[in-house]
């Protein structure tokens, strides 16, 4: 069996259900692979892990992947199970925010650690400064893990994922009617999320390329199974969570929402989506926080997905 180490972007949750299902259901084994799935965490940068040789393949957001490429870690997208993104900005209606025009003077919660590029691109597009609340700017908070800042009234809007934090806000007692959501895709600054990336030169090794083909094939099988059997997938995720803190109810919710994001993808990257992500990043470059400054080259390949999905 060939060993493959996958580094996730975040903790064990249904966001990564496809991989856990493939492992649990023996899809990897069928492809003669022995896959180790390393959960991530708030301070684990998958790009750093792969650069240091701690993983063969990682999941990450495209903006972060391209940024890493510009900083000397030659990442290549080999597959894109997520067709669309779940990132949004969620505001409390009672604070009076209804459109992006209302942002000026507000406090917005943002995730950093390589997740901030879409936000800065958006603000650049809106022409809003990010260094303090006034007529022409917003106050940015580094939002930690949870939705407390919104519930405690410390921020007017916070970042949420459709499949996770948004559900937590609903769980806390607010209804969809109390909230206003700005989906990044709908705002035209959508960027590809959770793709699979490897180091460019490793693909030159045919044996490695072959391993990745089998890996992507089995993973997509896992995603398909997960979408069809959300309850079982959620249970598999909960079983794989070593902290014992995840609940089945929440993971089931997450699975159903994640399925919406993976729905349109067969695993191959759609070059149009790639172009859009790059165009957004380049068109609205934030001065202090540029993800990329020049058009990347060779940042994706169909070599693996083509073979995997034929």
């Amino acid at each position, binding site marked *: 069996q060939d060993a493959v180490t996958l580094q996730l972007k975040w903790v064990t949750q249904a966001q990564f259900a496809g991989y856990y299902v493939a492992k649990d259901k023996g899809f990897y084994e069928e492809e003669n692979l022995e896959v180790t799935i390393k959960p991530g965490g708030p301070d684990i940068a998958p790009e750093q892990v792969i650069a240091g040789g701690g993983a063969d393949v990682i999941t990450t957001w495209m903006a972060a992947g391209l940024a890493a490429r510009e900083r*000397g870690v030659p990442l290549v997208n080999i597959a894109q199970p997520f067709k669309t993104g779940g990132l949004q900005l969620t505001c409390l209606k009672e604070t009076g925010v209804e459109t992006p025009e209302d942002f000026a003077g507000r406090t917005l919660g943002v995730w950093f650690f390589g997740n901030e590029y879409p936000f800065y691109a958006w603000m650049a597009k809106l022409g809003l400064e990010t260094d303090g609340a006034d007529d022409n700017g917003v106050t*940015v908070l580094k939002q*930690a893990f949870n939705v407390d800042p919104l519930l405690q009234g410390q921020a007017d809007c916070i970042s949420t994922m459709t499949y996770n934090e948004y559900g937590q806000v609903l769980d806390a007692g607010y209804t969809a009617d109390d909230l206003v959501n700005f989906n990044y895709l709908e705002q035209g600054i959508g960027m590809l999320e959770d793709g699979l990336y490897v180091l460019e030169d490793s693909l030159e090794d045919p044996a490695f390329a072959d391993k990745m083909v089998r890996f992507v094939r089995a993973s997509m099988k896992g995603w398909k199974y997960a979408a069809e059997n959300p309850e079982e997938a959620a249970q598999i995720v909960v079983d794989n969570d070593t902290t014992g803190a995840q609940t089945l109810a929440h993971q089931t919710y997450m699975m159903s929402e994640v399925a919406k994001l993976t729905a349109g993808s067969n695993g191959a990257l759609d070059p149009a989506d790639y172009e859009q992500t790059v165009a957004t990043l380049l068109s609205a470059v934030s001065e202090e926080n540029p993800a990329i400054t020049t058009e990347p080259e060779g940042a994706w390949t169909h070599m693996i997905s083509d073979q995997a999905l034929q």
Partner: protein
Amino acid sequence: MLGQDLPGSAAFGVAVLACIAMMALVVSLVSSGRRAGVLPPLVLGAAILLLWEVGTRGFGVPSVILPPVSAIAVRMVASHATLWEDFSQTFLKGALSGYIIGCGAGFLLALFSDRVPFLQRGLLQVGNFLAAMPIIGIAPILVMWFGFDWQSKAAVVAVMCFFPMLVNTVQGLAAAGAMQRDLMRTYAASYGQSMTKLRLPAAAPFIFNGLKICTTLALIGAIVAEFFGSPIRGMGFRISTEVGRLNLDMVWAEIVVAALAGSAFYGVITLLERAATFWHPSQRRG
């Protein structure tokens, strides 16, 4: 392996030899009996930096894992304005105010409990228990209570400093010898008099011990608390954000600032201690 890394390992070898030469110099200096002062640690530091620089460059360590020293230095110069902003946010606002509040509160409670001996025994036990507790774990709670800005960082620092200070002060107030106290009794000295003239001076070495422990805790507390939410400036914010962006040179620049600030803070307290407790055997020399 050999062929590929030859320039790297050759340079590394030269650097190792240079370090050995420097250390040999120090050895001869020290063993010749002359007072070498700050020279030996400086030489050691220089040797480590040299090995670091040559090692990272020579072996082609990716800069997203460990950048060479020179890159860090360049970054420090280029981003000095950001570094200063972060420093004032985290150290001047968060750490320092928390330090003053925490140490002050610990000291005052120790004084108070001294007047209520019954309370003191329990307080000390509970204080010892809480001092051993990983206070760092309360950071997410305090960020939730006190908001994102430096106030919550100050709160974390204050809580971390409180117990070491309390425990040390209480211990210090008990440090005056039985005979020294008896002397005060023979003078029928008032509580305040024996406090100011005997027990506080006798407690000073312990109080400074607490103050010194807290200098390192203060910086650590303020930085880690920023991991749990912060405005978009501060040393902890910068460290965690720039790791995510793979700008490791900036991360190390912040760490250098933190180490310099921490050492300076420690040094200042040590100087104060030396001035205030010159009489203590540990401070006498020659």
